[in-house]
């Protein structure tokens, strides 16, 4: 069985919402670096931060993050 892969669509959803990294960071009350590192796959957030970002963007969690085979 292949290893599941995490797909991160934060950047696509954020730009579609017309937000900058800083604006999203302010909405979600995280640092801009947190948003940047998640978008660049440097850092995988916890469920709490992932849910916070989804809530700030007004989308379900699985739109932002998805596990694929």
């Amino acid at each position, binding site marked *: 069985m292949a290893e599941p892969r995490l797909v991160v669509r934060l950047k696509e959803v954020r730009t579609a919402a017309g937000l900058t990294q800083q604006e999203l960071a302010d909405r979600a009350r*995280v640092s801009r*670096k*947190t948003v*940047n*590192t998640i978008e660049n796959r*440097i*850092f995988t957030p*916890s469920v*709490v*931060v992932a849910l916070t970002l989804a809530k700030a963007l007004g989308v379900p969690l699985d739109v932002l993050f998805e596990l694929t085979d």
Partner: protein
Amino acid sequence: MGRATAEEMKSRARARLSRQRLEWGLLACLVLAAVILMVVAARAPEAARAPEAALLSMTAVFFALVVLGLVVVMAFDLWGKRQADLEVLAGGPDKDQVQSSEAFGLVFLAALGLLYMAFGVEAGWRIASQTGDIDDWWSAIFSLAMPGVVMSTVLSDKFRTRQAGALPKPADELVIHFRRHALVWSFRATLVALAALYVAGLYDGRLAVAGAPIVFEAAALTAALRYWWLDRAASHG
């Protein structure tokens, strides 16, 4: 938060900033005094050529180093308060900037630790050779101070708040991630340094004692540099 409260906070921040100018001046005087003491103490034994003069000058150098170390710690605290007040005046804290200044602060402290390490190694060698005096004991023990400060920051799960008098907040998730990576690198560096120290100790037991500050400094410097590097990488993009 009401408009009056925000204005009140700005006015308090302005007052604190003006008070801090005096504190900066006092710190500068302390640095100047410590440097003068160090220069005079370093030249004294050459002039006097007496064992008592050498002991006195070593004590003076040690005292000057302690003062310089305390000034650095106080300067960082003051700098943090200044940043917090400037942020209040600018309208809100910039979390990214605060994180970056913490990363830079760690590297600065770890780099300063190199100086203390050099004194510690020298003192450790004399102690291991049975020729050390009380100043050597102080130097050897004091060489652990900077690595201690750096490592306690990296090991902490708290984020040091820059607001004067405020309690430390739980660290940002990304900061914890950086600290974890910095610790892993630090652990690797410690193992390598310990292995080298072990081999050196097999050759000459005194090297194992004298080289111990290098292990602590290697751990702290690696952690600080790795943390700073990760923070720098996160800032771009």
